[in-house]
Structures are given as structure tokens and as C-alpha cells.
């Protein structure tokens, strides 16, 4: 059973529908005990990092996610869910979960033709192989919607990149945690492949 963390920040029905389509059992929960005990966790999100963190703290989900990460539970973060696993976000000057060292910064393109939010389909270049990327061609396009981008402190945490005026991490990970800036559940067959791979992932990065 995959626990989808409900923190009122995202389009949870999309993630759950994609898992249903793949025949993968899931539950949407905001119960920290369910998250702690989950076999694997998807941590989705659309919205404001500050709001997301406030809800996580209020529900005790921040501590539950930290505990699950420490216990080795495979965790997939997406979009804002990927951003708040870092230590800090420029959005609302928010202190985040800090599961991976680093922060999030706003896109500030020099070129007026580059719009913010970065919204639409963009190529993802694989930097380092990972089990969740099995069967995903290098350069495949995924659906992004975000104004802030991931900046992990250690380049070793970057598994794939994309480009929007600046080359930014599209996938970051560490141990049993993998996180995509894009929305796998809205990215067609390649996105579904990532969700499917995640469901079978042991939690070891190689």
C-alpha cells in the first residue's frame, strides 16, 4: 500500500487516479501514524511551500516523514513535495524538512521570453541512473509547473536536470528518497513509468 500524504497542497486525485490506472493500491492520508507505518510514501504537491510546511507541522506530518525517511521507507516527492524536502525555500522564506541539504530559489530569467511559472513540457536529461528511471529514455519530456527550482547543496543528489534559462535539477534523491520537480501523474506514459518503477523500488538508490 502506497500512502499519499494529504497536506491540502495538491491535486491528490491525479496521483491516486494514476496509481489506480496502474493497478497499484494507495490511500490518501493525513494521519502521521499511517505515514510512519506505510510501506512506501508519495508526497505530492502543488501550492505554496510556506502553506505546505505549515500544514505538515500542524498535523505532525513533518516528524512522521522524517521518521519514515530515517527508517528507510521508499519516498517519492513531487513538485512542492520535492521542494520541501530540502532545508529551505525562498518561497515565503520557509524552513523546510531538510531531508536533503539545500534550498529552493525563484526563477529569475534574463530573457523576457522565458516565463515564470515554468509551465509545460520540458526535456529531462539523466545525469545519474536510478531504479525509478528504468525504461525512461534520456531526454524524455515531462510536465512541469513551478516558479521555484531545486538547489541541493551537493551535486551528488542530482539524478536529472532540465533547462529554463538555467539548468536546474529535475530529479533529486538520497538513499530511500527520490523527488521529481515535474508531475509524473500528468506526464503521459513516461510519467506512469516512473510511478510504476517507484512502486517496485527497494529504496536503494542503485
Amino acid at each position, binding site marked *: 500500500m502506497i500512502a499519499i500524504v494529504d497536506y491540502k497542497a495538491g491535486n491528490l486525485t491525479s496521483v491516486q487516479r494514476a496509481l489506480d490506472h496502474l493497478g497499484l493500491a494507495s490511500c490518501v492520508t493525513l494521519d502521521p501514524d499511517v505515514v510512519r507505518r506505510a510501506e512506501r510514501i508519495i508526497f505530492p504537491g*502543488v501550492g505554496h511551500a510556506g502553506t505546505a510546511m505549515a500544514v505538515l507541522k500542524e498535523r505532525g506530518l513533518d516528524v512522521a516523514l522524517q521518521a519514515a525517511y530515517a527508517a528507510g521507507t521508499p519516498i517519492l516527492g513531487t513538485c512542492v513535495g520535492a521542494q520541501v524536502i530540502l532545508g529551505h525555500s525562498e518561497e515565503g522564506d520557509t524552513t523546510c524538512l531538510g531531508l536533503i541539504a539545500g534550498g529552493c530559489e525563484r526563477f529569475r530569467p534574463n530573457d523576457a521570453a522565458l516565463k515564470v511559472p515554468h509551465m509545460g513540457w520540458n526535456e529531462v536529461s539523466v545525469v545519474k541512473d536510478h531504479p525509478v528511471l528504468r525504461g525512461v529514455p534520456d531526454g524524455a519530456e515531462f510536465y512541469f509547473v513551478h516558479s521555484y527550482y531545486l538547489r541541493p547543496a551537493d551535486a551528488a543528489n542530482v539524478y536529472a536536470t532540465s533547462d529554463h534559462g538555467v539548468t536546474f535539477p529535475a530529479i533529486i534523491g538520497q538513499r530511500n528518497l527520490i523527488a521529481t520537480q515535474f508531475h509524473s501523474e500528468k506526464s503521459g506514459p513516461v510519467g506512469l513509468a516512473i510511478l510504476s518503477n517507484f512502486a517496485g523500488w527497494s529504496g536503494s538508490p542503485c
Partner: protein
Amino acid sequence: MLSKRLISCLDVRNGRLAKSVKFVDTRDIGDPVETARRYYAAGLDELVFYDITASSDERDIMIDVVSQVAAQVFIPFSVGGGLRTVADCSRVLLAGAEKVNVNSAAVKNPQLIADASLAFGAQAVVLSMDIVRVPASAAIPSGYEIVINGGRTPMGLDALAWARQGAALGAGEIVVNSIDADGTRAGYEVRLTRLIADAVTIPVIASGGGGQPEHLYEVLTDGHADAALVASMLHFGEYTVPEIKDYLLGRGLKMRRTAGQAVA
């Protein structure tokens, strides 16, 4: 670098397509869910559903369509038509749509854009604008006026000013629909699209007038549009999604490649 998006819109009345869609196998399909599924399989980047159901008590049928599409189609899609309140928007988003499309209701009540943007995020709010060309005047300095009710009611509102206001209120994208070009299949209103795309920092979707792949090329380059909406050229079975994309790729545009996907 972002790809340009190919979007198609489907008009839905009482749960069925208002005009059926023809595929290369020449079958006519009136089912919006099956049509969406086939366009998705063919590599379309995004879908828009306009609910043109006349009576509001039949809107539940649309919610059912939205949730069926969401269960089978894993690309973003938006829903418009008849959304007057944040609660209306919430229903289609909870049913699985990625975005809502607001048009007439937002012209009458601009606060709807701000309220929906606050509730769901700017990325979920698409402002659709129906626009006609008029002589430039003090009230309409750009020479483009906002109309509602499918183009029948001029609102005395300058399209350029409305686009700026909509973006400032929190819309995440703008659809520029030229009523003059709509249905002509003679090409998009490139000048209008560019005027608006250059005036806002959010993505602009060109709509109305697309009849051939080169029309998309024009509006995605000269028109500065981020995406182009197509209807009849796809629905009548004259072009397929891969044909349109291959043409645009061949002209040097960046499009999401969909090699290996089924042709519909």
C-alpha cells in the same frame, strides 16, 4: 527549453461531444472520454473541455465526464463553461481536472480570478478571452474588444487591458480566442496574440482560426504564443497529432516528441 504545446478543445453538451470527432479510421466518435483517450494516446499535450450544456441541472453529467477522463488520460486538462463561483471550480478540480477555464463569469466578476487563484494556485486558473477587432477608440485603445456570450455581447473592455488585469489578479495562463478568426480556418490572429503575449509574463494560448499546420507555426513564432489550440483540423480527421507535431518539428520548433505512440 520548454516545448510549444499542442492543445485541443472539445465542446461537450449533456455529456456528449457537440460535434463528433472523426479519426483516421473514419469512425465518428461522439464520446468525449473515448476521444480524449485517443488524443492522449496520439501524443496531444493538453486538452480543454468546454461544457456547453444549456441547463445548469445537467452539469453533474460533466463532472462524471471529467472524472472518467481523469482516470484514463494522464496529461493536463482544463474544464470551462458555466463556472461562476469558486465552488463550481472546486468541483471540476476535485473530479480530476488540472485547471479551470473562466471566461464570461470573470468579465462580469473579475474577483473570481483572484478568489480561484488564491484557492487553487495560479497554475490552475486559465483566463479565456473572446476578442473582436474594433476601430481603436478612447475606450478600446488597442482596437481589440472583449465580448461574451460566444461573441454576441461587446463589453466595452479593452482586450489588452483585460489581459493585464487578469494576469495581475492571478490567472496562470491566458487563452486568446479571436472571434474574427474563429471558424475561418484561415489562420490565427497573429498580431492580437503577439500584442497580448508581449504584455503579460504568463503563458498565452492562441485560439481561433487554425486550419493548417503552418498556421500554428505562424502563431507560435511571430505570434509569440506558448501553445496553440486546435479544433476542427484535428476533429475532422484532416490532420493527426503526430502530423501536426512533425510539421512543427520540421520547421525547427521544439515540440514534445511522441514517437512510438498510436496514431489517432
